[in-house]
């Protein structure tokens, strides 16, 4: 299927939503800390690796984050 490109700067539409989700995420991580932290919990490492993917420049971030949270078919 062809990729569709919308006209204009897509941030015009998405910036506020991205901003809100970043604050939400930051607040959630503060909450984890206040709850005693989660040191050593492998899910915390999944979150950290996912944040690095989000901050990176690869074009398939969503796919990569999905794989970060997926079991491998090959075990």
């Amino acid at each position, binding site marked *: 299927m062809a990729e569709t490109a919308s006209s204009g700067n897509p941030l015009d539409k998405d910036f*506020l*939503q991205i*901003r*809100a989700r970043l*604050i*939400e995420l930051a*607040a*959630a991580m*503060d*909450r984890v800390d*206040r709850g005693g932290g989660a040191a050593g919990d492998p899910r915390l490492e999944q979150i950290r690796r996912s944040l690095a993917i989000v901050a990176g420049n690869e074009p398939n971030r969503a796919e990569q984050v999905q794989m970060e949270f997926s079991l491998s078919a090959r075990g």
Partner: protein
Amino acid sequence: MYFFDPHIHVASRTTDDLQALARAGCVGLGEPAFWMGYDRTAAVCFYDYFRQLTEWEPKRVANYGMAHWAWVGMNAKEAENVGLAREVIALLPEFLDRPNVLGVGEIGLNKCTRNELTTLEELVALALARGEQLLFHTPHLEEKYRGTGMILDLLAADDRVVPERVWIDHCEEHTIRPVLEAGYWAGLTLYPTTKMTPERAVDMIEIYGPERILVTSSADWGPSDPMAVPAFIQAMRRRGHDDALIRRVVYDNPLRLMRQSRNFQG
């Protein structure tokens, strides 16, 4: 659980919203004067709007078994027009003497311009001269930090200000601390995308405690949620907080603030 929504723009909401609020346990609503989404052309438009807030909306709300209180003022957006603002400020004393008008609000800053500040200073002067309670709207998004600081500076410069009679609204993580430390009331607005979520409001209670914190919907004519206070109550319960603490925030606190106004009738 019974609760108040001390900041909601009833004039912009339907009777379906009032019905839902009443069924959820809401016993009273506070309605500050604000920007209706378009700039009004003359002071007489504000005169009629203040009549709506003090005569018609209380009747509409009473049909659902809830009480209604109003605040009157010149909102930050239209405050840019200083000439118009002065004509509107001249109308305020008549309304500030009406039953169930709690004080001057919501007033504040939008783009933090010189004109907005001039209007704000004149509104604060009127309120302090009359001993009125004050309700401040703090700006949105990237202007919030700067605008909140300007409002706090303005208040700190006048020794007639009684902090527990001042409510600074739309506080967020980066502005709530100085507001509480100076002794003012801090409002948390649960508003999609641009302000707080119920979960983040619970965070604020966990970090700062319930003293002088108000939770409101500020529901208006834009995307907003009149059921925000019930959503906060639910989020508090999900996080394991007991009903006494929740009631303190959604019932006792707003009642305490509103009762400080001489025209409050409960």
